[in-house]
């Protein structure tokens, strides 16, 4: 009984894992490879780029993190372009041409995105002005009485 339990649990666990993972594994072996690139410099660029591309299926995940099949294919695409000697800019361009600016986690500053990039600074400026005016107004207020030091024993 005592020995059987962990065994049963292990079997159940393995079965569950097989059930959960079976399909993705079967699909992942379809037509592309995932794994470290032999050249460490290329691997570093690969990591950098895939963390800056948005997976279009699960839109809050990067291409690097997503389990979606499209993300795996885009990783394969990035890998091949790196091996073909493409520059980072060319790779980002390739993605942008097909999926639009949305695919880039760091969209370039242009007429459409200037508000997004500028908004934090604009709000900082507005907040600064508000604080400045409040502080200045208060510093001009007369002190109404001596500060209360409390009863002395």
């Amino acid at each position, binding site marked *: 009984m005592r020995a059987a339990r962990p065994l049963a649990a292990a079997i159940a666990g393995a079965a569950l894992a097989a059930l959960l993972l079976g399909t993705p594994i079967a699909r992942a072996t*379809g037509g592309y490879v995932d794994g470290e690139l032999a050249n460490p410099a290329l691997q570093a660029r690969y990591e950098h780029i895939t963390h800056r591309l948005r997976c279009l299926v699960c839109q809050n995940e990067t291409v690097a993190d997503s389990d979606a099949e499209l993300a795996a*294919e885009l990783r394969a695409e990035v890998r091949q372009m790196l091996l073909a000697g493409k520059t980072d800019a060319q790779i980002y361009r390739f993605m942008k*041409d097909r*999926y*639009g*600016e*949305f695919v880039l986690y760091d969209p370039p500053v242009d007429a459409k995105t200037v508000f997004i990039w500028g908004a934090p600074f604009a709000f900082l400026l507005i907040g600064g002005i508000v604080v400045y005016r409040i502080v200045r107004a208060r510093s001009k207020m007369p002190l109404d009485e001596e500060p209360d030091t409390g009863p002395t024993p």
Partner: protein
Amino acid sequence: MWKYLLPVIAFVGLLVLFAIGLNPKRDLHYLPSPLIGKPAPEFTLTDVLDPNRTVSNRSLAGHVYVFNVWATWCEACREEQHTLLEIAQQHVVPILGLDWNDDRARAQEWLRELGDPYSGVGFDQNGRVAINWGVYGAPETYLVDRKGRIVFKHIAPMTMQVWNREFLPRIEAARRGGA
């Protein structure tokens, strides 16, 4: 004056922002394709029905055609299949198919079972062609004009309403336009 007006303006601004952002009808997954108006990417793939034959959109150069991306793992594709068959029976334009990331045997069975509205279906096993077309979810349906440019993209199952409202007028225009 400004002291009282500014919060009101800010509040109205927030209301507008929320009205847009929280609108339940807004489709968060809708992304405008950057490929509209651009040349449709050329491809040549094996025919899903016969691996010894090829399917290419080059043979449709100079023609208006519809390009439909589907797969057997895509439930919504099953939904739109009868619409595609109905459209094919109108004989207005050829429908070129792309079987995306799929299993060939399953795809063949699908076409046998549900019917085949396509002039040809390319078998895109590793999704390379789909990437070139900026596909990110099936079903997707594109309209390509005579000059080989993508005129329109519909992301969601095809319906007769969408066909009559979005596609037919554009097909007419594409026919009148490019010689």
